[in-house]
């Protein structure tokens, strides 16, 4: 399930989708030369 930019569940097809709902998102950072 996705959230819109305001953090609300996406309710119509025309709204942007911004984040999955997982509260456990982590970050990885790489430099690829």
């Amino acid at each position: 399930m996705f959230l819109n930019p305001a953090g609300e569940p996406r309710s119509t097809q025309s709204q942007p989708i911004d984040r999955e709902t997982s509260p456990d998102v982590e970050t990885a950072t790489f430099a690829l030369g």
Partner: protein
Amino acid sequence: MPGVVRTRVGYAGGQKESPTYHDLGDHAETVEIDYDPGKVSYEELLEIFWQSHSPFSPPWSRQYMSAIFCHGEEQRALALSSRETAAARLGREIFTEVLPATTFYLAEGYHQKYMLRRSPEIRAELDALYGDPEALVASTVAARINGYLGGHGSRRALEEEIASFGLSRKSADLLSRAVRSTV
């Protein structure tokens, strides 16, 4: 790939504040990936890292260094182990540095979502959908479409989630055709 929530390119690893592409200071060009560890592991991302570039040459500038910027001790331990494994598997000296993550500075908009920028029809639709360029750069859907266009993702995976992207039929067909030609 499953579990990738957001991807952004930028600059990190240096001391200079507010770097830009033309005034990078001591930063390296980097990609920042937000991911759901319940769906994709850090080890899997490390595998993609090794497959996605050549770590064999000493960097001729810090801008183009090969590096893993670690967020915490757990990532550092996995990165060091992964580097050791990669060096043994590849049988050559590699020059990838394992460093602590520092402030990540978002690169200019024209550097973001490279593959999506090469698909003008889909990009125009997302531009209209989001309105705000920053929202588009930060969006999960843009990251996932960009990844599929770059060959990271199977047709089956795309089929399972494409309806959730909110694309028009035309853009969905374009994306499906692009993935069929790359995977």
